[in-house]
């Protein structure tokens, strides 16, 4: 074995381990902030796996979009609205957990079966190296033009929807019912994120 292949193997094992353990942590940890931070780790190890497949452009895009934008926004949202409140006891929690675990296990077994029965081409197609960005661009503007444009329209719709929901005070009537916007809903009392709460802390989040 050469140095390169040993390094590759070590990298693969480490990345896969972080990926699997991290994803389990995202799902199983009770603290939602930890889950969000672990999600960043999961995205990063996926980017590492892309890098090992010689898809460096996709890896960088993964880091930029998922870690830099999606995950930061998730964290942002959690930190702005996170409430330290006890969840109400749900009856039959253990049964629910066993059932959802069984569903997940079933899905995993299905995927495993697909993985084992598919005749994978080994070794795969030759890596494109530095031309990948060029080829992705060409495909986006030729045979994938319609999905690309549809995705941008979808994003625009989501953005307008978010603005409408967030700025209900500007649109003085409720968009859906046509009645005056319920200001009481907008000005909900917020419980502080930090452990020790003092009187002046409701103004804390408004300063951001």
């Amino acid at each position: 074995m050469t140095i390169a292949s040993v390094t590759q193997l070590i990298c693969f094992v480490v990345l896969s381990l972080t990926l699997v353990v991290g994803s389990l942590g995202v799902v199983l940890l009770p603290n939602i902030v930890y889950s969000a931070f672990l999600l960043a780790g999961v995205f990063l190890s996926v980017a590492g796996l892309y890098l090992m497949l010689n898809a460096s452009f996709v890896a960088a895009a993964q880091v930029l979009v998922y870690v830099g934008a999606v995950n930061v926004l998730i964290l942002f949202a959690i930190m702005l609205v996170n409430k330290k409140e006890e969840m109400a006891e749900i009856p039959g929690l253990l049964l629910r957990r066993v059932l959802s675990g069984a569903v997940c296990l079933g899905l995993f077994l299905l995927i495993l079966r697909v993985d084992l029965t598919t005749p994978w081409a080994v070794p795969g197609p030759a890596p494109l190296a530095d031309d990948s960005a060029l080829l992705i661009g060409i495909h986006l503007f030729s045979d994938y033009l319609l999905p690309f444009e549809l995705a941008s329209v979808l994003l625009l719709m989501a953005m307008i929807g978010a603005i409408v929901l967030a700025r209900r005070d500007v649109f003085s009537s409720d968009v859906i019912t046509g009645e005056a916007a319920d200001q009481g809903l907008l000005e909900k009392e917020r419980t502080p994120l930090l452990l020790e709460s003092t009187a002046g802390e409701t103004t804390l989040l408004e300063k951001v």
Partner: protein
Amino acid sequence: MSTAGSALAVVGPGLDLQSSFTSAMEGFGLSQGTAHLLWLPLPMLLVLVAAVIGVLVNVWLERKISAAVQQRIGPEYAGALGVLQPMADGLKLLFKEDVIPRRADGLLFTLGPVLVLVPVILSWLVVPFGQNLLISDVGIGVFLWIALSSIQPIGLLMSGYASNNKYSLLGGLRAAAQSISYEIPLALAVLAVVMMSNSLSTVDIVNQQSGAGILSWNIWRQPVGFLIFWICALAECERLPFDLPEAEEELVAGYQTEYAGMKFALFYLGSYINLVLSALLVAVLYLGGWGFPIPVEWLAGAIGQSVDAPLVQLITGSLGIVMTVLKAYLLVFIAILLRWTLPRVRIDQLLDLGWKFLLPIALVNLLVTAGLKLAFPAFFGG
């Protein structure tokens, strides 16, 4: 790629230290693999040391220039002109007690500063000091820097949250908001340069500017892009006038409030390494990188030497490093002057500037660049 190819032919292969080193090691009877293994850590260590020394110089400059701006003398007793003052600062931080607040989240509190520093250092991977004087000429080049710099806000949010302090949390949130807002115009400004160079690689971008010395630098073709990039880079480095995440009057020290000792030093190092890195990238993207204002080929031709002669190569290589560092530190000087002369903007002004001014301007700049590239392919990269 055609422009890069023709420029390469003009510049010549340049110094290739790696092949010289490996062949020298093979001369000592080592196998090729071992020689390569010995070579690998060398450029990384060199760049790491260069980055840290760059920070020391930067700290000294900051102290001296701020003193000059305020008509003081500044550090004077530690070494000649106070050059050892940054070392003293660093040593002091090294010996300080490492405090973790009792109700803080110890794990995230420790991980935060690391996550802030590591992406910044990793980004030095793509900074070229000469044709072959960079750690790795990866194809995605400058895009790697943009992607890596987007990891930083996670570290800031992490340390802001883990400190369990309202000022820290506010600072962390502000840092993330600021970083997200200014990343977009920054990336659009870079995209215009990339469009002209037909490549993301930093080496290709520099080579594309090397045709006619100072006249072919991107700053003349991308003046708006240069300004957008510089403003956004200052905002990404959290330098005044954009240092809202650590605005003393409002937030004590933002996300750094609870930090002491080496953990604080990591933030400090991170912000200064980031400043030097941004200055280096401005030099690479807009000021011709390692290029001398007069092309070295002309100079070599004027004194009747071939560019490929070993001595000429050594001189042009050294000149390239000096030029890169000189341009970067000129920009650092401007950044320091800005810090000590301008007042801080408010958070709403900051976000307005980012989203309502820089972003549309950057988009228009991109569009105009695309149009000019189609109209005048000879000047704007065909």
